[in-house]
């Protein structure tokens, strides 16, 4: 068993490495072969060299963006949990409202951005509002799904064992909901980050989006690439951490026999 699985593991790692190398090569060659004007594209090496300087310069912007992101996420997720819970306590209300929220996930909310700017100005509130709006819909859909996971007979059992309301919440309701809530959080996180960056790119003067936009319009290409790489790595790290946490929480749903 171990021989087969370790050779499979080696293949897996080889494929991943190959993908990384291919991507770097494509990136590098597209420039060397003159496919793209070097004014618009920095080589991997240039990007790497620009990293330390750019890291220092972009960290304050990243901090600003992440603060907005956390505020937006808290607001969007909080609202989704409250509204989702209220709407889904009644079957009728759930059938009435959930289709709206479901549609909201994929409707182009980005078109509302000019209106938000009109109402709220080019301010942090706009960023946070739009980020929260982006996070709200995927989260509320998952709140509804999570509530479906709580089976009435599991509650009856808890009652028969004399669990208090708080204990029922802690031992029956929350564990049943947690995997779905966690994956909802993953989607919400993703959407909130996207929302924050969109507003920053489009209108804001602060934050990583605005910084990246500046670098792009002034053709400081290596710094631009370095900043994008840096931000990408950080956001991917956060999102993947949530993804794997969600997967760990739902271990009991997927264990093999």
């Amino acid at each position, binding site marked *: 068993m171990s021989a087969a699985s370790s050779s499979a593991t080696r293949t897996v790692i080889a494929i991943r490495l190959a993908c990384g190398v291919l991507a770097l090569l494509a990136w590098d060659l597209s420039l060397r072969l003159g496919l793209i004007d070097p004014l618009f594209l920095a080589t991997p090496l240039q990007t790497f060299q620009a990293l330390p300087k750019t890291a220092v310069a972009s960290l304050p912007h990243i901090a600003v963006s992440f603060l907005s992101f956390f505020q937006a996420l808290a607001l969007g997720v909080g609202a989704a949990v409250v509204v989702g819970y209220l709407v889904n306590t009644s079957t009728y209300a759930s059938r009435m409202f959930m289709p709206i929220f479901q549609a909201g996930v994929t409707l182009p909310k980005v078109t509302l951005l000019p209106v938000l700017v009109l109402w709220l100005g080019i301010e942090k509130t706009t960023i946070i509002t739009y980020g929260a709006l982006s996070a709200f819909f995927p989260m509320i859909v998952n709140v509804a799904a999570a509530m479906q996971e709580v089976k009435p007979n599991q509650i009856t059992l808890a009652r028969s064992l004399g*669990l208090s309301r708080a204990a029922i919440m802690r031992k029956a309701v929350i564990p049943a909901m947690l995997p779905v809530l966690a994956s909802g959080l993953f989607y919400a996180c993703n959407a909130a980050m996207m929302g924050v960056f969109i507003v920053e790119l489009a209108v804001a003067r602060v934050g990583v989006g605005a910084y990246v936009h500046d670098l792009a319009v002034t053709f400081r290409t290596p710094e631009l690439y370095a900043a994008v790489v840096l931000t990408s790595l950080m956001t991917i790290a956060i999102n993947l951490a949530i993804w794997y946490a969600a997967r760990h929480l739902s271990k009991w749903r997927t264990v093999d026999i």
Partner: protein
Amino acid sequence: MAVIQATKISKTFYNPSESRAVKTLDDVSFSADKDEFVVLLGPSGCGKSTFLNILAGLTSHDRDGGKVTVHGRTVLAPQPDLIAYMFQDSILYPWRTVIKNVELGLETRAMSRAERRERAFKYLDLVGLRAYADHYPRQISGGMAQRVALCRSLALETEIILMDEPFGALDEQTRATLGSELASICRELKRTVVFVTHSLAEAAFLGDRIAVFSAQPGRIKIDIKNNLPRPRVMGSPEFRNFVDELWLHLQDAKQQAGAAPDRQGSPLGAT
């Protein structure tokens, strides 16, 4: 002395979509004495599970003068220190391992972690599932899940145990083994048991008394004392005779229900 007593219990379910009221239980009076093993028999859908739910304080009954008492005190809510309830479905929490499921009911008690563990293992040993303590419910079979549920109720070590077809999902052999285990446990530990089953042999083997329900509305049609001497032998002529007798009573109960379909429900005024 009756440990658990139900007097004139009726239960009506309202079906809002059809605006109908269905009387599932009608004036059921029942009692179980200390250390008695009472079996409830009856056709499917006659209200046995509903009746157990009412005894356990999980479901309310019609407020027309009926009541349930344990040791003379009226039951209005679950009494986990007095009554353990094993449901018809095993209802294990899929996010807890087998042993954590067994421990669930003990977590509200003043017990140390080690004591809980020890108690849980004691009962897992009894049903032969120690090796599966760390499995998740979806990794075990339906019959194993039912045994875990049995452990969970036994581990509470309450004076009264209500069991709703606890061995329903088991093969004949395991069923027989666990049945005799259960009989000796209850005898030894002096438990009062109310036990629902569809198996006549199980009823004859385990019950000190057997109450036969008729359906629609559910009533106790007859309450028979089981005078077979212990230890009981499944194949013996007396045993077979008794099973035959139970079968006849059950047939009667079913026919009665079939003959009176108009009693199934009464239309309510639209609300």
